[in-house]
């Protein structure tokens, strides 16, 4: 993260040496005469090959002679291991598609993946796309309310889940008349109820040939839910043509080749985990490794070493947790296979870049993008000098600008703060919010897509992140909408009013802090604070759980009665309160 002053004093660093020329070549040359057709040609679309992403990630790679190459190596929390070749991926995704079709799931319907990072998640993702249905991945740590809200909005007909998450699905189902089918991938001897069916994928009859749904470039593919300042989360609607920019950014930013072993830390419940944890890398024919376990420095380093990971896409929060453990753990491992590192989710602080040079011999390359953009839009590229703390430069073919906050005209003077805006038109930009055209229209002004993030650019054209332009909380790289947290808080019997804002945090950048007033008969206490924290965690998710709750006599409001979050947020960040003349006096 940087501001105008930091821009002027930033240290210009040379990028880490790479063993071979990066795929992008030079950023300057890649941008000259750029056309996305380049990626379409590499994907074979000019020959009339299918556009369907599912086919492109599996059948196309097999056709390139890589059928017996490992597509997925998976390690579970208890050390279990499973391995799948690209031919396994092709056949097992066929199996999922045929099985769902036989159960009455139709093209265009929404199928939710509510799974931990188990192999079935990755295989079913590809299978659902082959069927022509829309994949709706949801973070498996979501509580029943978060789950129900998103399934209801999407009109989801089928949820694929695990036994351990079945109780949450069952509780949510009471609110979901359109949910016809619940598929359990590890049912074993569990007693299943009405509308619940077991699918043991490894034991299912393999479907060698399957006629993939003839998706067009604009056919809906993936539906990710993302949080905003107001209202409930919105469904960001991607289409099959997103593959074009997801493929090329994976080649040029993550520098992936088919001989790479790649690890993406993101859960596919979030867009990074699908764009760059499934689609991009498999479109390149790379081997993906997945560790379905929580954070642990020793475990992570051992995994990088054992799997000989060459390219690692992580997040600032994880990097800061590794930094907390010091250099001793990393020194115990041979991580010499690593050749490129990248990071996403929140601004990568300069200290993390310096630390990774010392600890891993390579710098992390910050990348910037959003659920709505579908692909990386501003980035540091292999071979391009890194300015530690900078977001980097726009991806070739994508026009980014810093916009005046009132007129939304591009600013031409380096160092001025404005809204980061993008010219619409790249292939993976979402085509709308599910059932919410008005919400989508609000994301545009003066012909620009408004990211909601503020930034600056410097004289060399590098962008620098300043902060959100709204009340959305970025915690550990995940966006949390204050409205959803406030609504959950109000469901607690002791809470009368609530406001949720960001609070600075050394590891997660921001965490959720709640301010609440209590109903008569309830008294503030540490026990009540813990009870409310756990209440929100179970209803929404651990990410949305307030990490601190302030019990206050009243909340700042405008004269019309609207709670003013910005005053509370400014207090937390030690910033000026701004114009408070319209606030109601106590």
């Amino acid at each position, binding site marked *: 993260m940087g501001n105008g002053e930091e821009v002027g004093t930033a240290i210009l660093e040379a990028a880490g040496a790479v063993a071979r020329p990066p795929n992008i070549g030079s950023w300057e040359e890649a941008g000259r005469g750029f056309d996305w057709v380049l990626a379409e040609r590499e994907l074979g679309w000019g020959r009339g090959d299918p556009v369907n992403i599912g086919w492109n990630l599996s059948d196309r790679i097999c056709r390139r002679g890589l059928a017996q190459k490992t597509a997925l190596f998976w390690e579970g929390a208890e050390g279990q291991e499973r391995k799948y070749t690209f031919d396994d991926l092709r056949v097992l995704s066929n199996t999922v598609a045929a099985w769902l079709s036989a159960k009455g799931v139709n093209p265009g319907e929404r199928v939710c993946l509510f799974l931990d990072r188990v192999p079935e998640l990755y295989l079913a993702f590809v299978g659902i796309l082959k069927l022509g249905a829309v994949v709706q991945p949801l973070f498996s740590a979501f509580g029943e309310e978060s789950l129900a809200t998103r399934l209801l909005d999407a009109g989801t007909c089928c949820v694929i889940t695990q036994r351990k998450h079945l109780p949450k699905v069952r509780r949510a189902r009471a609110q979901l008349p359109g949910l016809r089918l619940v598929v359990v991938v590890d049912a074993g001897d569990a007693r299943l109820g009405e509308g619940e069916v077991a699918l043991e994928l490894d034991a299912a009859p393999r479907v060698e040939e399957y006629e993939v749904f003839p998706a067009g470039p604009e056919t809906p593919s993936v539906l990710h839910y993302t949080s905003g300042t107001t209202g409930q989360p919105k469904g960001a609607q991607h289409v099959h043509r997103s593959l074009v920019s997801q493929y090329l950014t994976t080649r040029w930013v993550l520098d992936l080749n088919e001989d790479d072993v790649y690890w993406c830390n993101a859960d596919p419940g979030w867009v990074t985990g699908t764009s760059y944890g499934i689609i991009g890398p498999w479109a390149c024919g790379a081997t993906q490794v997945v560790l379905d376990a*929580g954070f*642990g420095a020793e475990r992570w380093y051992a995994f990088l070493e054992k799997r000989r990971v060459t390219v690692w896409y992580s997040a600032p929060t994880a990097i800061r*947790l590794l930094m907390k453990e010091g250099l001793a753990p990393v020194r115990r491992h041979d991580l010499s296979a690593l050749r490129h590192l990248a990071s996403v989710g929140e601004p990568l602080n300069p200290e993390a870049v310096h630390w990774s040079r010392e600890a891993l011999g390579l710098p992390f390359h910050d990348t910037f993008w959003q659920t709505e953009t579908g692909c990386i839009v501003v980035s540091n590229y292999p071979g391009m000098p890194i300015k530690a703390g900078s977001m980097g430069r726009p991806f070739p073919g994508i026009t980014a600008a810093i916009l005046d906050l009132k007129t939304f005209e591009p600013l031409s003077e380096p160092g001025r703060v404005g809204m980061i805006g993008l010219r619409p038109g790249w292939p993976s930009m979402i085509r709308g919010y599910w059932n919410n055209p008005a919400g989508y229209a609000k994301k545009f002004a003066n012909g620009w897509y408004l990211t909601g993030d503020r930034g600056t650019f410097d004289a060399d054209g590098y962008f620098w992140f300043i902060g959100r332009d709204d009340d959305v909380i970025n915690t550990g790289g995940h966006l949390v909408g204050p409205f959803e947290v406030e609504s959950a808080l109000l469901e607690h019997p002791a809470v009368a009013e609530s406001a949720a804002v960001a609070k600075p945090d050394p590891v997660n950048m921001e965490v959720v802090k709640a301010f609440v007033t209590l109903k008569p008969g309830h008294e503030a206490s540490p026990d009540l604070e*813990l009870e409310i924290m756990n209440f929100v965690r179970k209803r929404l998710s651990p990410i949305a*759980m307030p990490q601190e709750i302030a019990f206050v006599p009243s909340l700042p409001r405008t004269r019309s009665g609207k709670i003013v979050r910005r005053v509370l947020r400014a207090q937390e960040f030690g910033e000026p309160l701004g114009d408070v003349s319209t606030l109601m006096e106590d």
Partner: protein
Amino acid sequence: MDDLRIAILDYVRREYLEEDDERTLSPTTRLISGGIVDSFSMVSLKRFLERKYDVKIPDADASPEAFDTVDSIAALVERLAAVKA
């Protein structure tokens, strides 16, 4: 197993597992790296320990490693309680 470990195990089971979750928890079960308690939820576990055992756990000590098993959590609580005494 001592009372401290039993109380922490009870809390973890009650708060972080579903009622019908059949997994067996022991003082050496990996909680954080095993995916039972995530790093965000760790804050509520920390708050519980501070309340119940009247200790203050410094942020530097509240690492995923220190919270990875009931044994390591209990050792941390015992150390902090001893310092306080």
